């Protein structure tokens, strides 16, 4: 449990909102993951604070998805540890949410039943399921579509269903793996605003993985820039811009350029 002497406690590395010290939600210590001789994650140390939206930005193929799969416990760690609320991270506890890059809505369930799916798996009482699903459908504006099947939806609606399904279970920690990568720019802005709105409203901690720098600056409270594989943390950028953020705001552009400079590996 005690960290190696040469490794500083990652919880002390930074404290974003500075005003009030935030509780640590996720503690990543000396996280290393390799597949055979291929080293993908190289000794990562960082924290995710409770209630914050953390963006992990890095070049495509740098190991962002691998990191999320370690966090869920789908993949065993090669070394180090990931603690969520002080306990070893595992999907088996069932308090995580995950929005996948590709469509993950269940084709044979209606929008309503898709949103209820996670709650059903968790054996939530039916009256609670009804109340939560109806509330979240209203929040994300999916009510008019609740009886449709996913294949009758557009790609953006489909991804909203996946997001609503996760929020309905009120996850302790929501992981998002380039969820809007497949969508066109206009829809992406719309869904990013929506994510931010629900996240603030529900107080959910979100770890958002993306290779889109603008998206990260738009969404994040804090950005961690990862290097090319094997991934290490190259830079931490705290984003305190007021919301709603504007892409043409000079300070937005300045942060975007800072992250872009950090990400350049060529």
């Amino acid at each position, binding site marked *: 449990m005690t960290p190696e002497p040469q490794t500083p406690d990652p919880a002390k590395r930074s404290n974003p909102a500075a005003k009030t010290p935030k509780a640590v939600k996720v503690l990543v210590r000396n996280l290393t993951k390799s597949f055979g001789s291929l080293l993908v994650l190289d000794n990562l140390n960082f924290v995710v604070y409770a209630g914050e939206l953390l963006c992990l930005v890095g070049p495509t193929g740098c190991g962002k998805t691998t990191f999320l799969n370690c966090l869920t416990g789908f993949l065993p760690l090669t070394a180090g540890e990931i603690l969520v609320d002080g306990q070893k991270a595992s999907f088996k506890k069932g308090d995580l949410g995950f929005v996948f890059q*590709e469509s993950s809505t269940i084709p044979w369930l209606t929008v309503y039943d898709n949103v209820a799916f996670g709650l059903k*798996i968790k054996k939530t009482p039916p009256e609670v399921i009804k109340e939560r699903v109806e509330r979240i459908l209203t929040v994300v504006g999916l009510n008019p579509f609740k009886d449709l099947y*996913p294949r009758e939806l557009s790609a953006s609606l489909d991804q909203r269903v996946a997001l609503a399904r996760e929020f309905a279970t009120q996850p302790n920690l929501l992981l998002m793996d380039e969820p809007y990568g497949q969508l066109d720019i206009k829809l992406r802005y719309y869904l990013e605003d929506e994510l931010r709105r629900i996240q603030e409203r529900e107080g959910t901690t979100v770890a958002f993985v993306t290779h889109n720098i603008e998206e990260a600056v738009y969404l994040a409270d804090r950005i961690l820039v990862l290097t090319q594989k094997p991934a290490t943390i190259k830079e931490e950028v705290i984003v305190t811009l007021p919301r709603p953020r504007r892409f043409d705001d000079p300070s937005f552009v300045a942060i975007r350029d800072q992250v872009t400079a950090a990400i350049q590996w060529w």
Partner: protein
Amino acid sequence: MKSSSRFYPLVLGGAALLAVLGLWLIISQMAGPKILPRPWSILEEIARLWRTPLSGRPLSGHIFFSLRRVLAAFGLAVLTGLPLGLALGWFPVFRKIVTPIFEIFRPIPPIAWIPIAILWLGVGEGSKIFICYVGAFIILVLNSLAGTLYVDRTLVNAARVFGANQKRLFLEVALPAALPAIFAGLQNGLSMAWMCVLAAELVGGREGVGFIIIQGMNMDRVDMIMAGMAVIGALGAIFAALLRVLEKTLCPYRKQLV
């Protein structure tokens, strides 16, 4: 414009059918009705077989025998092949153990089992049901195996993140995901059972639609052969339609696809 485009395929299909019927009549005219009877003489022959017993049974009796064999074999194949295929798809260790054994039997055409089935089970119902069973069984196993094996991993992972155990994963994700493949297997398995019942009845037996066809050949009666073929075709189509209705009920989300 809208209604005309809806009827367009109907018109095309109808025209094609009429063209085939016309061609049939022309060939029948040129070759003579003994080689190729006219379409309506086949209907007449079906009516005659319905009224006049052949080998002690009217057409309905022969249909009953073929139907019983097919449904008994198909039922057995569903009861055994479906669970086996699902288990093979879901349990990797089980799949590794059973696949080599299954692969030995898989490529043997069901009809190749006829002689051995007759030697083992006699010329009665047992051997005929066995042959149909072999045909349907293999198809059902392969389809339910493919259905559960190729379940979208993202859906499985999405359910796992919610804390689903193996049982819930199978019941809530793998099984419903495999349903379309299972239904494809049921359709193909049933056609295979019909194919095999004909083969079994052609080889031995004094009842069944296959027997009518072979009698037609022995009596040099093309109309009788084609009447038997038409009856088999109609029965197969009816059962395929019933399965489609069942699929539409169980997989409402595929309604525009089925």
